[in-house]
């Protein structure tokens, strides 16, 4: 048997985690052990895992802080809804419509990604972060005032002025109605679709990271000027990472929207972007597997804290602060490590290892 490379092994573990998660959840929900509220969370969990993995490409691998990832999600979501609802009559099969919606959603998000990325990526650091935030807000604001309807003549798209039912031809219907968002969506998303999307996202991101382009992207993160001086086209690779990340977010957004009967633009606000960023940072920047695990756990955490209903978001905030302090403060980190080692010592007899210098930093 051919020996697997280190990367291939690590990839296999990552895929295995997702596959095991899928199988276990299928069995649990099939046997009715899973509470109904948790079953309802399965598709959003898949979506947020994809969001976290795709954002990790921008934040962890490219090293640029993006605060507007939910903007791309919303572009994908709304485009997806428009596609799925307009094709309702011509394409009968639900899964095919879902795939079409996701693909067009991804393409549209990628186009917006290029439009945003070209100006944004010229900036650095915190300035870049604030401009992504600004773009996220602009996208939300525009989608909040978008009116789309469909009838025999095709699509009617208008900004700011509402479309009334009487303007439409016989059998026409509203798709997006301004601040109310899209309503009357046929639920097409399934947990299996979410699972396949996760595999696809992982496949794209992992392959990109481990390719020549991926190494170029990481070299820009580690030292932009050095990368530039060895002939790496900084703008091209930055844009590549940014657009791929946007497209994947758009795809996840389309799946997300198709999981509900209605979806409004305000769902994809700054807080959603931040939520995904929290997953990425807590999972470890640039660590794809970490993003998956953090997204799954943190998304379910408020659900699990339902026992303390009113206090759950407060707990969530405290958990977030404590985790950040423990993982980033050298004194606390060493303290936790010491306790951990002591605990391990109780159960496992270990041969004491001589203290190594400089272990605490990174």
């Amino acid at each position: 048997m051919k020996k697997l490379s280190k990367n291939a092994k690590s990839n296999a573990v990552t895929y295995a985690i997702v596959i095991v998660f899928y199988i276990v959840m299928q069995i649990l929900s099939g046997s009715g052990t899973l509470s109904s509220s948790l079953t309802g969370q399965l598709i959003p969990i898949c979506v947020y895992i994809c969001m976290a993995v795709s954002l990790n490409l921008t934040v962890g691998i490219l090293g640029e802080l993006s605060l507007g990832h939910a903007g791309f999600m919303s572009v994908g979501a709304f485009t997806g809804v428009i596609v799925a609802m307009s094709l309702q009559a011509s394409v009968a099969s639900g899964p095919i419509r879902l795939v079409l919606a996701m693909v067009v959603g991804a393409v549209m998000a990628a186009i917006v990604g290029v439009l945003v990325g070209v100006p944004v990526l010229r900036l650095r650091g915190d300035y870049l972060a604030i401009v992504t935030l600004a773009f996220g807000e602009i996208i939300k604001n525009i989608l909040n005032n978008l009116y789309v309807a469909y009838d025999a003549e095709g699509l009617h798209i208008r900004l700011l002025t509402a479309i009334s039912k009487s303007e439409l031809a016989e059998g026409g219907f509203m798709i997006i109605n301004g601040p109310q968002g899209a309503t009357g969506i046929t639920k097409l998303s399934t947990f299996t679709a979410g699972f396949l999307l996760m595999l696809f996202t992982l496949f794209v991101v992992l392959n990109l990271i481990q390719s020549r382009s991926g190494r170029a992207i990481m070299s820009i993160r580690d030292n932009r000027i050095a990368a530039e001086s060895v002939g790496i086209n900084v703008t091209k690779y930055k844009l590549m990472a940014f657009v791929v990340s946007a497209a994947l977010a758009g795809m996840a957004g389309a799946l997300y929207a198709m999981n509900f009967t209605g979806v409004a633009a305000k769902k994809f606000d700054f807080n959603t972007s931040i939520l995904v960023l929290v997953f990425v940072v807590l999972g470890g920047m640039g660590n794809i597997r970490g993003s998956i695990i953090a997204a799954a756990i943190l998304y379910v955490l408020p659900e699990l804290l339902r026992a303390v209903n009113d206090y759950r978001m407060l707990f969530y905030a405290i958990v977030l602060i404590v985790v950040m302090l423990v993982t980033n403060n050298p004194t606390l980190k060493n303290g936790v490590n010491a306790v951990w080692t002591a605990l391990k010592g109780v159960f496992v007899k270990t041969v004491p290892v001589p203290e190594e210098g400089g272990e605490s930093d990174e």
Partner: protein
Amino acid sequence: MAFLSNLISGISLGSVYAIIALGYTMVYGIAKMLNFAHGDVIMVGAYMCFCAMNYWGLPPLAGILLAIIICTLLGIVIEKLAYKPLRAATSLAVLITAIGVSYFLQNAALLIFKADPKVFPSVVTLPNLRLFDGSLIISATSIITVIVSAIIMVALTLFVSRSKTGKAMRAVSEDKEAAQLMGINVNGTISVTFAIGSGLAAIAGVLLCSAYPTLMPTTGSMPGIKAFTAAVFGGIGSIPGAMLGGILLGVIEILGKAYISTELSDAIVFAVLIIVLLIKPTGLLGRKINEKV
């Protein structure tokens, strides 16, 4: 006349943004961190003033004073508990912690004050100013807001440029280690910065809610984001930049609402920000930093 009236309400709103932006920019200048919880300190200040006036029957001035004291203490406590342990950590780690603090404040407020919006009674009880036979009406709140902001800006500029503490603040923001070697108490200076920023946030909260009287646990977040934008707009880390950025942002927002589109006013504000940053990548008054390998 309508233009003048819009311009004045724009300047008034902009002054509030400027006061909030000062908090962002000072903390950024000195601790190199984006304090995302700043917007929620505004909300806490407004609630304190609201409670003092509505439940405890205190006069408005006492309410404002109480809000300032509570917020100042809150700022110091937040800095000591959440940010100080992360002095050596990456800026992103601090950013996420700040977001955690922001969630904490919002949800604590949600538990204490519940989600239903409170109607904030204006702290300004003076009659509105009528000019040109009533064709131009300026609300007293706007006038007081602009005056208070102007006083704060002048006082802060003098404080930072003349006082010893202000000098220490400038030194720490320039070079933390060198400042420490010169005998400056760096941690103390950072605490003072947070205290001033949070105290200003309390004033901003009271002024904001006097003009826009709905008070909810999320009241602080949008003005917080806008003020943060204003700070970046003017060049983050620069005190005059924050003032200029704040006022310009307020004027653009109100004029955009009046003459272009009410619904798209936020989009207009952010679009202007993007255009400015593309032309001047470090903001209006920001310093250009050369990178070295």
